[in-house]
């Protein structure tokens, strides 16, 4: 299948010609396949937010290309809005973008900009609200009366309502409590499974990425450090740790066990897989 997004030798430099000039993204190339769940992780300042703002044309590459379904998104700068409708981007702390009088109107902002009206608009809004677990009676409230977590959901719904082919999320769970995190991730997972849409998730939480992503991209200092399936990436746990990144809880336990001499494959990143390995070891009668 053709990749839905192709990023070719993308470089972005901030503050060209000032003393503050620096490259936040340097010569990155990768693809996002249709229907996959791609996780992006990296240290603070490694260029994650900068990178994903290129995917919907909010930032223009200093050099390099972004192809959406095979077409350069900057081929026709006038049509960049179409790209933004197809690649929905949810920013870090999106709750600060709410502005309308009611939750309903705020969610409707995106689809209304797309030109949707009447029954279709109503359908998008209600469906998006349902996807993120906003109840019907909350739709008529002011978004500013909601709690932080609820505001976050409204903001997410505002992008989901545009029904983008690719949903890009920048640390959607930052600053939420554990239950809120799990809830929001479940919403995103459901959306991915039920609608078969492509998802790009930027996160600092290894566990979140390990549990959800089909493929992982690891950034370090404006470059791609690794890319591959979770098993491939977490198998290089030591490298991740030395890059200042974390590994999932389970992988860390596996690494510690292996350091104590147990023959454990360090590429495990789910509790089930580790359990299976440990049970197999016990059956094999190893010193445990």
């Amino acid at each position, binding site marked *: 299948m053709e990749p839905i997004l192709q990023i070719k030798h993308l470089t972005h430099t901030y503050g060209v*010609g000032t003393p503050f000039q620096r490259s936040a993204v340097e010569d990155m190339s990768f693809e996002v396949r249709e229907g996959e769940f791609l996780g992006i992780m990296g240290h603070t300042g490694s260029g994650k937010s900068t990178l994903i703002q290129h995917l919907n044309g909010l930032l223009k590459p200093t050099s390099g290309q972004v192809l959406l379904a095979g077409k350069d998104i900057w081929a026709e700068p006038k049509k960049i809005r179409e790209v933004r409708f197809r690649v929905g981007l949810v920013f870090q702390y999106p709750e600060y*973008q709410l502005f309308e009088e009611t939750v309903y109107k705020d969610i409707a902002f995106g689809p209304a900009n797309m030109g949707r009206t009447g029954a279709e608009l109503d359908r998008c809004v209600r469906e998006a609200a349902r996807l993120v677990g906003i109840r019907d009676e909350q739709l008529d409230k002011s978004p500013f009366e909601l709690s932080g977590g609820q505001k976050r959901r409204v903001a997410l719904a505002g992008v989901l309502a545009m029904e983008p082919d690719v949903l890009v999320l920048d640390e959607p769970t930052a600053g939420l409590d554990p239950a809120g995190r799990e809830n929001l991730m479940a919403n995103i997972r459901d959306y991915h499974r039920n609608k078969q849409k492509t998802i790009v998730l930027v996160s600092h939480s290894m566990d979140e990425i390990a549990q959800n992503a089909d493929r992982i991209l690891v950034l370090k200092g404006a470059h791609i450090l690794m890319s591959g399936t979770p098993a491939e990436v977490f198998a290089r746990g030591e490298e991740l740790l030395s890059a200042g990144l974390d590994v999932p809880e389970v992988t860390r336990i596996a690494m510690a066990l292996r350091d104590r001499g147990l023959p454990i494959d360090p590429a495990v990143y789910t509790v089930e897989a580790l359990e299976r390995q440990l049970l197999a070891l016990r059956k094999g009668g190893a010193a445990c």
Partner: protein
Amino acid sequence: MLKDITLGQYFPGNTVAHRLDPRTKILLVLFYIVALFCAQGVVTYTLLALCLAICVRISHVGIRQLVRGLKPVLFIMIFTGVLNLFFTPGGRNLVEWGVIRISEQGLHNAVFMVLRIMLLIMGTFLMTYTTSPISLTDGLERLLNWMKRFHVPVHELAMMMSIALRFIPTLIEETDKIMSAQKARGADFESGSLIQKAKALIPILVPLFISAFRRADELATAMECRCYHGGEGRTRLHVLRYEGRDITALCLGGAIMVGVIVMSRFGL
């Protein structure tokens, strides 16, 4: 695009221009402005331009940044230039073409007026580029200290100014972020009629105001938590002290100002 606003931006460095006492720099800029407004002819203007060039050289501020600072006042400069060019009578007429008439005096005035504005802006910007907003307001407060005797709330004004300066970049950054977020939802700020454009600002202004009020609230709480109660009895971490270089700079600046004033008396 919003990032192009360099007003009050500080480029850190460690040159003599950076290390001068902020009071010295404020006074020097004042001298410079006085001299600029007294300057009359080619000699004095050249001298003042040269002074600026030397200061720019010393400060390691890129000439490109300095020129970029002129962008916001470009309109005023063009307006002044055109106005002076066409509507100053006096001297020989260089061009006569229907109602359009450019006199010798007009050309002279136009060139010097535009030069004056340019030098003025660049001189002031050089100060803000080499002085952090905090030390700038610090210097201003110390310079205006004598006004306290007349019950002018100098400290409060200086505090307000430093808070405002501190939050300009933050608010610009925030505006940028909110704009991006709304653009991601298909907001269109560029096309449409004037009314449509004004309406398109609502999705930016509402979140911006909300966050500005939130920040103000948080800052007030934070200040109160640290027992801020105005300027009364407040001591400083960095006490400003004039050094040898400040005295040298002030003497030099003063001499140039006096020189320019004297020279302009002779029409130079």
